[in-house]
């Protein structure tokens, strides 16, 4: 599978499982669509989110070593690093025996949500803009 195709697939899974962490798929009838009932299962989508996060980190590390950070693109790399920098503490917070202060918990959650939205909106903008710097390999 070409490298960027794998990346796009993983980010799509991250996006769906990430949005599913908010209680909206059931509210807005998405989970009622045959075959999409799992989108309202918070525990399943949480595990799926972790799996996709592992795949993203694997892909990112491998690509940086093989082709250099510049092959990812400056903007994309910055957005991904923001996502990872907020996602990893969020994950650490969820481990047993790890407690962050309520304020830190709130900020981690909000910044992770913000980073995800920034990546999503940028990707959407690129789709419409067909930016020449967006790699189409």
């Amino acid at each position, binding site marked *: 599978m070409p490298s960027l195709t794998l990346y796009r697939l993983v980010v799509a899974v991250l996006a769906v499982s990430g949005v599913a962490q908010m209680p909206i798929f059931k509210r807005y009838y998405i989970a009622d669509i045959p075959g999409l009932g799992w989108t309202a299962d*918070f*525990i399943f989508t*949480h595990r799926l989110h972790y799996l996709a996060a*592992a795949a*993203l*980190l*694997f892909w990112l590390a491998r690509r940086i*070593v093989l082709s250099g950070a510049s092959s990812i693109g400056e903007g994309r790399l910055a957005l991904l690093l923001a996502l990872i920098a907020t996602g990893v503490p969020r994950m650490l917070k969820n481990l*047993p025996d790890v407690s962050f202060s309520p304020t830190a918990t*709130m900020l981690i959650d909000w910044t992770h949500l913000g980073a995800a939205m920034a990546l999503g909106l940028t990707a959407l903008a690129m789709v419409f803009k067909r930016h020449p710097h967006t790699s189409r390999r």
Partner: protein
Amino acid sequence: MLTSVDTKSRFSRRTLFKTLGLGGAAALMPARSRAAVLPDTGQEMATLLDLNKCIGCGACVDACRDVNASRYPEPKKPFPVMYPSRVKAEDFSDNRHVDNRLTPYNWLFIQSATAEGREVFIPRRCMHCQNPPCANLCPWGAAARQGSGTVAINTDICLGGAKCRDVCPWEIPQRQTGVGLYLDLAPSLGGNGVMFKCDRCSDRVANGKLPACIGACPNGVQEMGPRDVIVAKARDLAKATGGFLYGLEENGGTNTIYLSPVSFEKLNAALMEGKQSGKTGANTSERVEQQGPGRPHLARVADVMAGSNTLAWAVLLAPLAGVASAFLKGTRKLMNTSSPQPAVSDAAARKEERNA
């Protein structure tokens, strides 16, 4: 036995017990062993509830309601119209008197179950899990576990999506519509109020006081202290009395440990029986369900977060695996380029063929 004649009446069998309990039982019961104030140990704190001592008087429930009354929601009505139509308002503001289940206005209630011919009273509230799914999975950072082991919801920012209730094995948090931050965002499209539950009187404990329910109990049913001390005591008591424990292993461990003279399997079966028939264990005329919305079960609970915790290691190790796979690829390439040339080159082989 006295029964409640009016559902809104505050005078009930419990009121009678409490009156007797506060007035006389405290003197008749064994001396209370709890400390007057909570030591500030900085450790994870747990609560032991000895159900052998609970007479269901409800002093703890009233104390909780009195102390937390100023924190109860005051919703704005009419509620915003919410879309789609399947989203229903949850409103207890006209039923604030209800104290026989968990509601946004009642964070502690007393359940009863009859097993082995004995009625057992069980004060029920948030279990304060050691690794709480409500706090871990709240998408908005409104729920958090404090270092003391207390799990609390920040009602100033909670949007009332009720995910915490969905992922809680006991479905503890309760929603009140028409209050909270969601009203200032997009009330028709997202959120539905604020979730409320026990926070072990965080503010009182921060000032060295006991949670209201513990201090008010005439029989010293509850004891709060460092988790290791409480767990050791719970195990010792269970061993000495042949009792049963609940909360030690549930959901990977909680900071609410019940000690019961009757097995929790039997108590839970009794609760479920009550659910089917709409009866309390002993008094069939009250006909109050003991298990259902706002009335948690007592079944054994597996660790909700276990699967995610295992996968967390995969996430942490993934970058190393990525680097390792890149090096493996590089090494293979290197080995292929440095492999010895065939003894006879292609050109030489073709020349040999022509000569042949």
